[in-house]
């Protein structure tokens, strides 16, 4: 189970790296076509934006570990394990409750978007935006899993690892 999870996470990481590579390549194609062949390409712009949206939501759902996310962990890492477990339970319940409650409305917004298509790539917008529903479901499942561990008394340990976290600043 554990090794399957680790394997899946590595594959999710491959996908994220590939999305960034596609974004980068699309930009290069765009520059080359526009400035060397005087041939503007609209589809590359669209592709890069799609990759950006998917990379962030996909990555947040499947790639980033607990210690890599940006959080304010001064209190979190200073308190006793029992208190920390309590704090994490409150957070998990808030996420499960609020994300869960917004899931039906989010789903209907995304499916409603089937009336539109991306202008160049002609992909239906409900497909492009489906990543948000995937993201919501994945995060809810992740926090349910975390909650079950917390309720068994497992300490989530300290917060972020400063060598891994970066807000890009």
């Amino acid at each position, binding site marked *: 189970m554990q090794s399957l999870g680790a394997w899946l996470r590595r594959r999710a*990481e491959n996908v*994220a*790296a590939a*999305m*960034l*590579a596609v*974004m*980068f390549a699309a*930009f*290069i194609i765009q*520059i080359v076509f526009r400035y060397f062949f005087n041939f503007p390409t609209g589809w590359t*712009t669209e592709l*890069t*934006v*799609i990759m*950006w*949206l998917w*990379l*962030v*939501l996909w*990555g*947040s759902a499947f*790639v*980033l570990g607990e210690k*890599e*996310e*940006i*959080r*304010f*962990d*001064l*209190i979190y890492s200073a308190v006793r394990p029992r208190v*920390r477990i309590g*704090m*994490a339970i*409150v*957070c998990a319940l*808030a*996420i499960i409750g*609020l*994300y869960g*409650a*917004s899931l039906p*409305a*989010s789903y*209907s*917004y*995304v499916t409603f978007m089937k009336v539109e298509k991306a202008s160049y790539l002609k992909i239906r917008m409900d497909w*492009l*935006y489906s990543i*948000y529903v995937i993201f919501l479901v994945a*995060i809810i499942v992740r926090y349910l899993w975390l909650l079950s561990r917390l309720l068994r008394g497992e300490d989530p340990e300290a917060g972020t*690892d*400063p060598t*891994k*976290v*970066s*807000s*890009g*600043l």
Partner: protein
Amino acid sequence: MTLAFGLCLIAIVALSLLGLPIGHAMIAGSILYLFVKGIDPGTAAEQLLNGMYSSFLLLAIPLFILAAEFMNAGAIMDRLLRFCNALVGRFRGGLAHVNVVQSIIFAGMSGSALADAASSGKLMQSLMTRDGRYTPAFAAALTAVSSVIGPIIPPSIPMVLYALISDTSIGYLFLGGVIPGLLIGASQMGLIAITARRRNFPVEAKIPLRELPRITWEAFPALLMPVILFGLLYSGITTPTEAAAAAAAYALLASVLLYRSVGLRDIYNSLNTSARITISIGMLIAGAMVFNYVVTVENIPKSVAAILQAYQLSPFTFLLFANILLLVLGCFLEGTTILLVIVPVLLPTAIALGIDPVHFGVVCVVNIMIGLVTPPYGLLLFLMVKIGQVSLTELVREVLPFLWAMIIALALMTFVPEIVLWLPRVFGYKG
């Protein structure tokens, strides 16, 4: 301010204090607002998706991160440090000066202070503490404060974010950061020069002049990157995002062809690291997009502007107020969050008072960068505690004099706008 907004704020603050990742706290708090207010909760999805999908400008962020990662993969840091050592190593406190000059040069390739500290931190720490030349705390403190220059001198990730929220030209913002960045670097080197006498810092062995051309040549591909970036940006050949992509392509080519130390595995690792950083910052942006919808519905920026105008603030007092507010918030909040959530609230007032948006943007970014080294919450401090293996207290004690120097530099550029605006105006900025 309504009850719903009050609850939303309390939820975001409480969840963040409890340790929930900040991006999720903002989304969750905003969803709570939608429910209490009776607005369709699908609006959160709509705001996040449309916001991310239409913010083409933000694509510069992953590309700038990628460019710096590719450069790092090419082991440029060694060559860059040799070059800096040849330049300033001969002065008293040589390696300390090298640390600052390296940050200034690296700032021209990277838009992130944390990336600068992470990439040069370990090497600099081992060089400076070897044979007990400098204390570990001083070395770590210096890397932390000099890294702050990274996003002030272009390219700059926080400036891309500011350009997004303020509709200001990235090019002029970037130019506006050049002199303030150099000013902060100069203030740090001045402080090092004073401390070096007092603490009797060592001098590095002089590099013979005839070796300088070779050392410069080795560092040349790295030194060329800022030039290429600027050339593309200011000649108008490419858009800012395309310039970022071209910079990344150049960094990749330079690393693979010229330094020949980069294989497929390194390229994959660079992509992977960049993707992770992009995801982290992207989640903050996504959270801020949903929360900023709430802020707009509540008309907060206008209310704040009305309150501040009732006090009949002069631009001077407003800037003073904004600086103090941002510095205090910087001690407790994460910088990207301040930039995406607090700055948009202040911006309408700044503009109403006739403060130039480029000037205000650079001042805000410098404030936020200083926030990275102010305790108790400073990401650069945490990073250097880990890399330098020093205690937070020791580190902060060594950071303090530099902090004062930076605050003086900040005051200068706040109240003498020409420090920021002179260079953009030379390049045609009509502000």
